[in-house]
């Protein structure tokens, strides 16, 4: 089911949570709404679900304007951050709830409901636990019950609010992989909210980066990671360093020195140069950025070196192989291999 959000604005008590947001969600894709807390991502998800109504703008399900339809009419599967499992019902009863509350004309027979619920429990790998109660399950198992319960109503769209937020790192990674498999098998259009950029990059077909009630960029993980559209996106997706720089004579200048990096396709002027710790080359040349090693620490298979650059001691981080001899030096010269330059707003 294709979902289109058109110029949606949402205010809570006059305080705008979303400003003029538009987003097209393609049928069958797995899309992440990514942003820091307060960016409006959960609000957008709840608007799509019909748990909130837009102050202005419209939400379309296919060609149908769903803006004023109730959550029941929209037929969406919603997985809540804390699962919201019904604690007085068994796992089987939880999963069958959505079918049991249907009006008599559309409600399947009891045996059929049971068969379907068991089938879904099998899909989420919880067969045999149907008689347990939610408080007898682990966090990861509850998450899977919540997903099975949402899938039971054959939703047109599957919406997940911070689906892995309350789980520990290991379970998180496993469930991530597993959610991707479920998505590929069932083919539901799926939207999930997360503040974890790694999760969004790994799991989604496309991601929608949000900040302060606005969409900053929508694109594939490669797009967003390699070609961030704004300083915010660059800083939020992955590690990054920034330095004030000037473009002159087709080159970048920092602190009045050319740094040996060609400013391809950049108009002359001031701005900020962004690059990632692992996208730098150490050089011996004069025309380069140079800094004093302020400290270093081991991060996984690499050594992260913190340099202090220029007279005002701006911090820049570089990744070096952990056994790189440069890790012992006090002064390093480097050039960003890949970078983005964002001119100052005039």
């Amino acid at each position, binding site marked *: 089911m294709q979902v289109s959000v058109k110029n949606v604005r949402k205010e809570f008590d006059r305080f705008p949570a979303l400003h003029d947001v538009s987003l097209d969600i393609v049928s069958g894709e797995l899309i992440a709404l990514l942003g820091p807390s307060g960016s409006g991502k959960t609000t957008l998800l709840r608007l799509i*679900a019909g*748990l909130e109504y837009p102050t202005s703008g419209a939400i379309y399900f296919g060609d149908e304007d769903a803006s004023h339809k*109730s*959550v*029941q009419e929209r*037929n*969406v*599967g*919603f997985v*809540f951050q*804390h699962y*919201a*499992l*019904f*604690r*007085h019902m068994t796992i089987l009863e939880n999963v069958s*709830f*959505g079918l049991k*509350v*249907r009006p008599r004309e559309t409600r399947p027979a009891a045996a059929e409901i049971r068969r379907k619920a068991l089938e879904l429990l099998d899909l989420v790998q919880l067969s045999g636990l149907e008689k347990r109660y939610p408080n007898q399950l682990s966090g990861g198992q509850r998450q899977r019950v919540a997903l099975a*319960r*949402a899938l*039971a*109503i054959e939703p047109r769209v599957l919406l997940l609010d911070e689906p892995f937020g309350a789980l520990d790192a290991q379970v998180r990674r496993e469930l991530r992989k597993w959610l991707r498999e479920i998505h590929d098998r069932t083919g539901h259009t799926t939207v999930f909210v997360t503040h974890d950029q790694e999760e969004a990059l790994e799991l989604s077909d496309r991601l929608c980066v949000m900040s302060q009630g606005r969409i900053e960029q929508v694109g594939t993980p490669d797009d967003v990671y390699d070609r961030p559209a704004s300083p915010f996106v660059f800083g939020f997706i992955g590690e990054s360093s920034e330095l004030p720089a000037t473009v002159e004579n087709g080159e970048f200048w920092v602190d009045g020195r050319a740094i040996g990096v060609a400013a391809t396709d950049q108009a002359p002027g001031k701005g900020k140069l962004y690059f990632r710790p692992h996208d730098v080359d150490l050089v011996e040349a004069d025309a380069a950025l140079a800094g004093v090693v302020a400290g270093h620490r081991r991060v996984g298979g690499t050594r992260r070196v913190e340099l202090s650059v220029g007279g005002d001691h701006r911090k820049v981080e570089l990744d070096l192989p952990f056994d790189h001899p440069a890790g012992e030096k006090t002064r390093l010269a480097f050039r960003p291999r890949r970078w983005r330059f964002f001119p100052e707003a005039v």
Partner: protein
Amino acid sequence: MQWLLIAISLAFMGLFLVMPLYAVFHEALRQGVGVFFQSLQSRDAQSAIRLTLLVAAIAVPLNVVFGICAAWAIAKYEFKGKAFLITLIDLPFSVSPVISGLVYVLLFGSGSLLGPWLRANGVEILFAVPGIVLATIFVTFPFVARELIPLMQDQGTGDEEAAISLGANGWQTFFRVTLPNIKWGLLYGVLLCNARAMGEFGAVAVVSGKIRGQTTTMPLQVEMLYNEYNGTAAFALASLLALLALVTLVLKSILEWRFGDELAASGRH
């Protein structure tokens, strides 16, 4: 030190709680079990018991409905005047029951605007059962609501949202999700509400008019009998009320022990 404190508490409780309780049953049974049952079977005693049960049977269900509505509104919605509504719910706790009764006298008495009009239309409120019911509802209103508000606030709206997102309508959500979530808290509130409804004296005394055999509830009957130096009959009836208190206490303890985590306010009463 520990034992001293425990001994002091026990001595205090013995003096002020257990001894009076013992005295009630002792007095009630002093002239034998026969007289005890005889005095309970008198016409007036029977009528008082029936009236008390009737009043509780009307007041408690009404307060359950109003209490759930109020708690729901307060716990699950944001609106202006919410703090004021919570204060209002507490009003019966902070007002002397006698004043609560007097309010109804002022509202429905012969000197009021409503009273003569209602009487002209054949509706008796004061010195009749409706007045007693109204006064009891007023006095017992906070019990259910106060018990449910923190519980429902604590539970939030997640379960309800999950239910409606799965297609449940309002009633299905209430009966299948909300009510099971609050059932023990609700039962707890009902228990306290019922105990107070049956035991209320002050407010009921003002509006009842104490017409023997018609508008006397058990507590009123106890007082009347006692004032007439009919000690055995008074204490026989009183022992029933004391028994009700004991049963309530036991049920309350069972609820707290078994479902303590589902009673948000269990430590408060």
